[in-house]
């Protein structure tokens, strides 16, 4: 008889309470009537009203989404290329330098990435004249740079765990390497590419430090807006914004998880049926 791991279950409960009490508190206080963000003063949805009527928030959200969509897409293309190169090109010249270059942004403190990007863009504007002003372009460029390496990590590890014989089989059946890539490799790693894109998108949506350094006048992303508000202290409309974020992300994550789980279960069922009926 297995003993129930009481201690571990207690720690799990404690851990999840630790994870979610602050978030729940934020959600509850988003319906607070009081101006004070953490003292209960009756139920109200006025902060949602003020949030929706705030054009600045809407503009910041749109800008963030634009940057995230563009940077995640380009980062996915570049990151996938790098992942393929690292996983499949063997020992090409400059491989060590390249893999170092792909790892470094992962561990570079954001503040240093931010400052170095800013100095780079300032000097570039001074001596080359492009980009003339900082904003959408510079934030996007910086986001591509530090999110592509996350895509690379995801794609590379998926490719290393994939059965290479599948690609060899395609080659053996007459396909040249490029065609093997299109016919077999990319379809097989497409889930990793998709999750890489999602990761890059989230990183971009969430980034405040690098955006804050590389932005210019007029280009305020949502995290920059929140940052500037929060620095001044706790404000209730941020609670409302946080609630909306948590609810949106929660719905997305759980729907995705549910769909994946269902697909996995169906595959498992099909696999079992295949063995029972066909043998």
């Amino acid at each position, binding site marked *: 008889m297995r003993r129930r791991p009481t201690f571990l279950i207690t720690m799990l409960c404690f851990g999840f309470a630790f994870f979610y009490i602050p978030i729940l508190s934020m959600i509850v206080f988003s319906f607070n009537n009081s101006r004070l963000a953490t003292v209960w003063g009756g139920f109200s949805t006025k902060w949602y009203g003020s949030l929706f009527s705030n054009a600045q928030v809407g503009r910041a959200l749109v800008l963030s989404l634009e940057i995230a969509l563009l940077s995640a897409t380009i980062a996915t293309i570049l990151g996938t290329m790098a992942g393929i190169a690292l996983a499949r090109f063997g020992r090409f010249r400059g491989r060590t330098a390249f893999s170092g270059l792909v790892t470094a942004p992962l561990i570079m403190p954001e503040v240093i990435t931010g400052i170095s990007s800013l100095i780079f863009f300032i000097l570039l504007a001074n001596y080359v004249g492009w980009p003339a002003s900082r904003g959408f372009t510079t934030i996007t460029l910086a986001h591509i740079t530090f999110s592509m390496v996350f895509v690379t990590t995801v794609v590379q590890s998926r490719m290393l765990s994939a*059965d290479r014989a599948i690609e*060899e089989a395609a*080659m*053996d*059946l007459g*396909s040249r390497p490029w065609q093997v890539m299109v016919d077999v490799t990319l379809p*097989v790693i497409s889930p990793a590419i998709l999750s890489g894109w999602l990761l890059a998108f989230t990183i971009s949506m969430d980034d405040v430090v690098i955006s804050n350094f590389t932005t210019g006048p007029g280009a305020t992303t949502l995290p920059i807006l929140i940052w500037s508000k929060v620095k001044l202290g706790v404000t209730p409309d941020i609670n409302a914004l946080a609630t909306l974020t948590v609810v949106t992300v929660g719905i997305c994550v759980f729907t995705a998880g549910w769909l994946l789980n269902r697909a996995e279960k169906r595959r498992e069922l099909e696999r079992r*049926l*295949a063995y029972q009926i066909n*043998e």
Partner: protein
Amino acid sequence: MPKDAAPPPLIRVENVSKSFGTFQAVKNVSLTIDKGEIFALLGGSGCGKTTLLRMLAGFEETTGGKIFIDGQDMTGVPPWERPVHMMFQSYALFPHMTVEKNVGYGLKHEPMTAAQRQDRVREMLDLVQLTPFATRKPHQISGGQRQRVALARALARQPKLLLLDEPLAALDKKLREHTQFELMSIQERTGVTFIVVTHDQEEAMTLADRIAVMDRGEVKQIGPPGDVYEFPNSRFVAGFIGSITALEAVVEAIDGVRTRLAVPALGGPVQARSVAGLSVGQTVTVAIRPEKLAISRAPQTGDNVFEGEVKDLAYFGKDSLYRITMPSGALISVHAVNARRSAEGERVVDWYDKVWLSFDPTSAIILTA
């Protein structure tokens, strides 16, 4: 090239070597394979058989020697330009394509119309009896069916040579036997030359017309299954294929087809079939397969008769395995068919019985290597 009456071999492997860094995976291997043959590369893991197969397919470059397929030098020819297809050990089916797409994949490189292509796919699915599963994905069919999809896919482009990497290893025992015969019948119908890599000697013996036994990158012996079994050329081959008792011996006298050997382990002289190149006084190995020995509780006389005691016996039903201790202390294995049902009360050979072993002089194999 020698011009004989026989057609030139389909495959010529000439002094092929392959090293990975300082490790020599394949050492100076030469062999020829005729059109329509089933040829087996047999050996333990790490013996270089898979590396040789991958060099034939073009996935590995040779580091020495040349491979000719149908007279054409394959050096520098990439896998996609070789008239060779492979059935992978993992089957390597494309997980995102249906069975028919898998089978038809190679055909897109053939100058065919869509209808011709479809016909060919249908024909192949028929050949491996998978027509009802054409629209399924690989994960929706069983292991045995996947194996057949892999076979159909590799055969669809009518290769000159089909390479099979451990084709039966992933199947369970019952299915394996059935599939062995299916593979042979498909080979017969298509006439494609097969090279099978396997570590399973029984599989190699059943499937192959000829076997190459490999060890540590070298080919030890090539021949039909019967030759390799009955006339092994080295202790390694003798021991790798089937079981054998090998004993140290010294040549005492050579008399035409018979050679007399002193075998201290048996405590007496052994008469054996002569082999070329022996000289009196030479130390050799004499090897005897367990099933070639007769065991009897009744005293025997004559050549090649030795007395011992049963140390161990294993009863398998249709046959039994005995281990006999000789007076010298040596252990001899004997494999005997239980051809007769023993009558009630009659004693069969039992533990600690005194027994007489005998064998025909032709059964004793003299090994110098």
